[in-house]
């Protein structure tokens, strides 16, 4: 699964997700893209499941670009642990997503295949999405 090779700090603040995506909100590499309509965290597992669903449906045609990267570590405290004694251990990685962000792009397939593949991928994600195509076409 996707995760950074090395990080400057092991743990990160939770943060808040406000506003909409002002960057990475248009299709830049492929012909079609999956755009987030909600905000939230995408775990590296969800992202990998999305990618596998899309590539399997597209079979041997086309290309896939992941436009988000899970670079935020999320910590959890062990079960049955009393509060306090410091922050928990890092458990998994997420990508922070704001509405409008293009998550995945594909090309090399026709519109029908692209829509079906992206819909299969979207089912793995924790918020609503829509399929968009390259601007100007």
């Amino acid at each position, binding site marked *: 699964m996707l995760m950074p090779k090395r990080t400057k700090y092991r743990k990160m603040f939770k943060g808040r997700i406000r506003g909409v995506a002002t960057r990475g909100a248009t299709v830049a590499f492929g012909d079609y893209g999956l755009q987030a309509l909600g905000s939230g965290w995408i775990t590296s597992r969800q992202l990998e499941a999305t990618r596998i669903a899309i590539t399997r449906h597209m079979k041997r045609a086309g290309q896939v670009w992941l436009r988000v990267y899970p670079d935020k570590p999320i910590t959890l405290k062990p079960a049955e642990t009393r509060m306090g004694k410091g922050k928990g251990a890092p458990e998994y990685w997420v990508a922070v997503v704001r509405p409008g962000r293009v998550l995945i792009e594909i090309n090399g397939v026709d519109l029908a295949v692209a829509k079906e593949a992206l819909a299969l991928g979207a089912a793995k994600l924790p918020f609503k999405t829509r399929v968009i195509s390259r*601007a100007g076409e």
Partner: protein
Amino acid sequence: MSLVNLNIHPRTTAGKNENRRTRAAGRVPAVLYGKGRPTASIELEGHAFEVALKHLGGRSAIFQLHQAGMEEGHIALLREVQRHPVSDMILHVDLLEIPQGQPVVVAVHVHVSGSCAASKTGDGSVVVNTNSVEISCLPRSLPEFVEVDVTELQLGDKIFARDLKIEGGEIVSDPDLLILSVKAASLFVEEVASAEAEPVEAAAPKGAPAQKGMPTPKADDKKKADDKKKPDDKKKSDDKKK
């Protein structure tokens, strides 16, 4: 390409709040500029512009501008359309006024048509490297898009900017600019096969660490963590003794 009529109105107001009111009233804030003319703040009729953008030539359309008090015959090209990332509402438009009888340099989209033999058999796929090329031509002969037919292409074939043919114009982009190529699909075969065998682990990127969970922290971080723990442990042991 035919001209698309567009009514424009002068805009005296500026700023975030005034533009918000303009959009709420169904109009779109815009700016009109060009060589030898002062830049003017204008506003467009929102619905008419949206229709023109969708059905009447899209982004490479040429607009015939109509304004009360302005002489006829001004034409303009779309330079930029800013949209809201979620609602897709048009926020602002840039229009570039162009001279009638002189050639203009415009980026035109490349459309891929047909399917090559390699993609039909599944041995390869068409990889588009560049989605637009710059061409120089008279405004009247500006094509909506440049079409590239890939039906005759074989595996490994490439199309460069110099291979494109445009009626009434010429390519300004670098002649050696790669437009598209037909590449073998071997990469995709491996990916699918490995993904089916081991859905999660096999799909991990090459550079990622082999371990399943989190990467181990850096040695420095470990040392720091140990150092922090030590004083606490000492205190606890002291307390127990007491």
